[in-house]
């Protein structure tokens, strides 16, 4: 005991410590050292803030048609007072859309929808994928075969094409588009979970739980699955980026969110033929999609590097 105390005080005096550091502390420390991850987190924070406060930030109601209320015309160019737009004209930071609504307000409300789309599809895909992957990995045999071959078939189609086909079957609409994107992203998660399950299934702590009388449910969800958490979190963060991009593409094609919903993809799709005359109506929604996807990509990449023990010596 005395020896240990001596050792601790000696190490402390040399600037070293025996204090235990949790995985999350290490991860956070490593994550905050990466500039790109911080940029991603910054944009993401801003988006969440906009999504939460859209009704106070937005100068207009996103559905409000301004005909007769203000002196504006369809697809009017942006009017920003600071940049020399006459003070007597109403300010519209991103101009007026094809239905005489304030583009800026619609864009702000779009953040809410975009984040919702990302999180809900990925949650659906993670839950379903985890259950399928865990069952396949744990039970093996024909269960595994059926599940994984089905996943192979799903992976054999380009994701967007399959999503388009599924939406057509279910009928166009935001919820169905989300479901379609969720379905096509299941295989990625199922594979990640299955691989993790396979790698720890035969380990001693699992056998110990079994010997202690733990049932399948306990072994699977309490002992094995926590080991799959790290790759799942990384995959999920990057998956949100893909989901938002695909959902925007479906809405752009008219299969996802329907007008007048302020969804970036459908806002862009509705004005795509006006790109030569009113480029601002195409430019801003696209930029918003790109920034959102970029923030999740940067953050996800940072997470992957921070959680990867092989990189510990590089940045930890």
């Amino acid at each position, binding site marked *: 005991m005395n020896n240990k105390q001596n050792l601790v005080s000696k190490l402390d005096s040399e600037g070293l410590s025996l204090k235990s550091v949790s995985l999350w502390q290490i991860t956070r420390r490593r994550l905050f050292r990466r500039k*790109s991850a911080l940029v991603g987190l910054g944009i993401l924070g801003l988006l969440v803030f906009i999504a939460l406060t859209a009704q106070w930030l937005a100068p207009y109601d996103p559905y409000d048609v301004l005909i007769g209320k203000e002196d504006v015309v369809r697809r009017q160019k942006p009017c920003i007072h600071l940049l020399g737009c006459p003070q007597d004209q109403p300010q519209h930071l991103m101009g007026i859309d094809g239905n005489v609504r304030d583009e800026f307000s619609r864009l702000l409300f779009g953040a809410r929808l975009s984040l919702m789309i990302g999180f809900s599809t990925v949650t659906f895909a993670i839950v379903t994928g985890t259950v399928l992957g865990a069952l396949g990995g744990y039970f093996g045999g024909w269960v595994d075969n059926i599940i994984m071959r089905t996943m*192979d078939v799903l992976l054999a189609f380009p994701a967007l094409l399959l999503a388009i*086909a599924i939406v057509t*079957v279910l009928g166009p609409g935001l919820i169905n588009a989300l479901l379609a994107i969720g379905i096509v992203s299941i295989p990625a998660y199922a594979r990640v979970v299955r691989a993790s399950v396979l790698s720890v299934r035969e380990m001693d702590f699992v056998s110990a739980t079994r010997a202690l009388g733990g049932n399948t449910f306990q072994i699977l969800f309490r002992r094995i699955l926590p080991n799959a958490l790290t790759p799942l979190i990384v995959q999920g963060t990057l998956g949100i980026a893909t989901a938002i991009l695909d959902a925007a*593409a479906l809405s752009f094609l008219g299969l996802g969110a329907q007008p007048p919903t302020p969804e970036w993809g459908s806002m*862009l799709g509705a004005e795509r033929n006006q790109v030569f005359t009113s480029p601002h109506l195409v430019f801003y929604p*696209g930029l918003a999609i790109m920034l959102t*996807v970029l923030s999740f*990509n940067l953050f996800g990449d940072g997470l992957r590097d921070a959680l990867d023990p092989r990189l510990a010596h590089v940045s930890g």
Partner: protein
Amino acid sequence: MIQYILRRTFASIPVLFGILLVTFALARLIPGDPCRAILGEKATQEVCDRFIREKGLDRPIHIQFGIYISEISRGDFGQSFRYGMPVTRLLVERLPTTVELSFSALIISIIIGIPLGIISAVKHNSWVDVTTMIWANTGVSMPVFWLGLMLAYVFSLLLKDTPFWLPPSGRITPGIPSIPFYEAWGLAIPEAGFQFSVYKFISNLYIVNSLLTANWKMLGSSITHLILPSLALSTIPMALIARMSRSGMLEVLGQDYIRTARAKGLSNRTVVLKHAFRNSLLPLVTVIGLSLGSLLGGAVLTETIFGLSGVGRTLYDAITARDYGIVQAFTVVIAIFFVVLNLIVDMSYAYLDPRIHLD
């Protein structure tokens, strides 16, 4: 090796069967009445009954599936209700555009992506590296349809009247005379059958056909029309390839044998290109292979924006019009292409890295 190829090919049979089942099911599950989707809302019940009987749509579903499988195995993809012609003919007409588009996008992404990745790995943490990575991260986050529209805006409108002007839509400038190469060469081939389809397919590859017939005006037109769509389509794979080749190179460059090579006095160029690059190729091949699949998905969007009638656009139109024949055939062709591609990617591992034993 041969054993491995055979085993992998056999292993993909269940997947292929699954693909056929899924496409068949999806096409049948598309809601709505195929008869009225094809013949119009005002078609009478009698006309519709006859239509359904003629197309075999009144038979039990498993019989329809059986017929479908046996037809496909004979290379017969059935008829397109809407266009009233065999789907195979439509495929021969539309696939070349998509092939040209995807391949030029892939070539652009490889010839720009790989050097960028290598340079940023060699000059790790320099401004070149930082710029490349910012650009690569932005590239993978870019919606294809937005980039396409913005490119069209810049190159077709802002740069109008300059030498950089590029056409915003279509495959070629209308009115340029062009004849298929087999006619120009005076080849006498029967206007049907497999051989004709192959010739027709090649002649529909505009760039190839204009090269074969020495039609330079046509070549110029078909290339300029392809630049914007392939640029838009290439962004995501280009960014992925740049990122992959950078991280692969970084990993390899830190290894002992590279230090040995440098110690031997080899030039930096030889070390990077001969010693390091080959070993960083492996993950790159996977990314390139997988990119081709995403290119096909992206083709739906790119073809829609740039008014190209390729496979993606036709498939999208067919889905909305409930044209079962096209939906089934095109999806199956794309999916099979994807499976074969994965097989090739797996096999190329052994060739690229002799340390990998496939058996």
